[in-house]
């Protein structure tokens, strides 16, 4: 029974989420403020945090950063429509995914499932020490720089492999263009999102994923590697 911490300053949304998530079988904790949220993450150790970006005391981005200082708990951010910049900032600050208000429970649950599953996969040995990563039918061998899809080897260039490995390491998390460029291309990059676009296109072709069901595009934000069998409900 996963323990979910819901952080929002609107009591009625908290109430609706508490009832909805409890019915799903989660244990639900709630927090009205940013400080309360950080404290509860530290004390109660939730398996997942649903965080509204607009809080009365602390900015949601700041809450993200503070939680990330001591915890890798997956964070799904609730944001207002049209607030693309803050979404990207939240993802850069350590959030795993986002849901735009107003949202249906089905969409939220799909996001929570992905975030929880990959957090579980990442646990145990930390992502830095993993030698093999499995995302659905995709297997990435970090030691031998090899990737197979349903057992068939993918012919990848060095950069393509690096990109795939990066996305696989952060499977389930929405990776912004900025994050990908900085980590795969190097610290000198950050604005050249067309590079990422070209390489994801090639990767999709080699993986037979032209529709982007596994390597998903998050419009205006970045990319997300999800197992092909259970794609989250389309966003927006």
């Amino acid at each position, binding site marked *: 029974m996963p323990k979910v911490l819901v952080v929002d*300053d*609107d*009591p*009625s*949304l908290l*109430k*609706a*989420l508490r*009832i*909805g998530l*409890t*019915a*799903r*079988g989660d244990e639900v904790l709630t927090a009205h403020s940013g400080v309360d949220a950080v404290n509860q993450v530290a004390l109660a150790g939730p398996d997942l945090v649903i965080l*509204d*970006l*607009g*809080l*009365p*005391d*602390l*900015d*949601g981005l700041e809450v993200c950063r503070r939680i990330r200082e001591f915890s890798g708990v997956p964070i799904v951010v*609730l944001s*207002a*429509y049209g*607030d693309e910049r*803050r979404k990207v900032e939240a993802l850069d600050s350590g959030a795993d995914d986002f849901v735009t*208000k*107003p*949202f*249906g*429970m*089905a969409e*939220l649950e799909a996001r929570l499932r992905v975030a929880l599953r990959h957090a579980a996969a990442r646990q145990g040995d930390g992502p830095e020490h993993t030698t093999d990563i499995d995302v659905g039918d995709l297997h990435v061998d970090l030691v031998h720089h090899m990737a197979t899809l349903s057992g068939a080897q993918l012919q990848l260039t060095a950069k393509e492999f690096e990109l795939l490995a990066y996305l696989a390491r952060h499977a389930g998390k929405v990776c912004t263009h900025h994050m990908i460029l900085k980590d795969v291309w190097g610290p000198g990059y950050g604005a050249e999102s067309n590079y990422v676009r070209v390489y994801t296109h090639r990767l999709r072709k080699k993986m037979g994923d032209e529709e982007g069901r596994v390597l998903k595009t998050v419009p205006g934000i970045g990319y997300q590697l999800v197992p092909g069998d259970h794609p989250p409900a389309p966003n927006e």
Partner: protein
Amino acid sequence: MTDVTPGKLVTRGTYQHNLVGIAVTLAGLVALVALMLPFRSHLSIAIPALVLVVPALVGAVISGFPAGAVGTVAGFLAYDWFFLPPYNTLTVRSPQNWIALAVYAVVVLIVAQLVSKLRGAREEALRRTEESERLFELSKALIGDLTLSQLLTHIVGTVQSVFMPRWTALVLPDANPEASGSGEALQVAASAGQAMNDDDLASVTSGGGQARSLGLVDDRAPRRVSVALVVSLRPVGILVLQDVQLAERERSLLGTFANQAALAVDRAQLRDQALRARLLEEVDRWRRALMGAASHDLRTPLASIKTAVSSLRQDHTRLGSEDRAELLELIELQSDRLARLLTNLLDMTRIESGALELRPTAVAFDELVAEAMASLGGIVAPGRIMVDEPQGLPLLLLDHVLMSQVLANVLENAERLSPDDSVIRVAARTAPGSAATRVEISVTDDGPGIARQDRERVFDMFSQNGGGGRAGLGLAIAKAFVEAHGGLIWIDPDVERGARVVFTVPCDTLVTAPA
């Protein structure tokens, strides 16, 4: 505008002026002759000659050479007739007397000539001073911070008072000819003097006026003078003077006037445009803030409604009947909230467009509270409200529809900021120091209170801290409505815990509510 003496720059009524001079001269002459006549036989013939120089010179000083000349001739005749023997004839017997007479005439004529020239120079100097004063007066308007319409009025007023035409009009290109619908490119922006009749208006603004009006004198209306106001070869407008005849000097003065006026008008027009642009920007900023605030406030209840509804649809098998009831209640409450927000927004736009009209009636305080609670639907549970109404509180005199919205907004805010099931206190008392013309209503909650630096901002629609956690439109609207009633709204700084919002409302000074 400085006082302008009537009369044209160049001495109008010179004729009249000369008559005065001549009259003074002749009167003086008669008086002096009368004075000297009894003693004429005892006087040397030189004395009357010297004395009679005086009136001629006085005349020349007063009105120039003509009076001097008249004085000379009259003096000559008087001298000859009364003082040169044989008396009472024009006959001059002695050659000595002929010399006296001739010297008198020559001296007086020369002196009168000199005096009148001096006088002309003085007049010229005066005229120049006056001209520069007029120009200075006009240039003051350039420096001064007049609005465009004030400036135009000033220009035509000055021209009218200086040149005294029948009327003066300033014709400007129509700022937006499409909007006026007249299709005419010119319109009279300001006029002075006698009222212009329709023919005047038509002839001044009629088409094809540009080229014709650039000339100084209008051929089609001979007694009309038009001067183009031009700034760097671009026509700004036309100054039209009706029924006036200008000397060369006055024309050049008018030309200088026109140049300065053109610069001033151009500058004022540019400033007007800048002001209008800034105003539009301000309105635009306000609209955007309203849109932003409204969309945030509308989205919040919508988010929980959608979450609750989707839960009900999806998990109906797993939800207990209690959960279902709770979700349904939540949906109902949030729908009420949405409806209230829309009412608020509508009122806000009515305030903004000036369509809001206060309809004050006498209302008892508890009626106002009841109305506010009704408009809140179930957002605030009635059990949480504690009303404190003192004995003998006067009836409130206000627009109860608007003021119940104010109270509802403040209550809703208190509900949002305070823990569930805590008590919200609503109190009223006669406002201290108001001579019992106002009642102070306060709403106190048990929440975390409002930080000192936010106490002003919560009433500001533009307030926004860090992208979220805003007070919402409610208090901004409350403030607008309270101020429309001439009242004040503030956060009481002297509460130990929670927040207290206080506002004043007008009350009936004569009638108190029944106990």
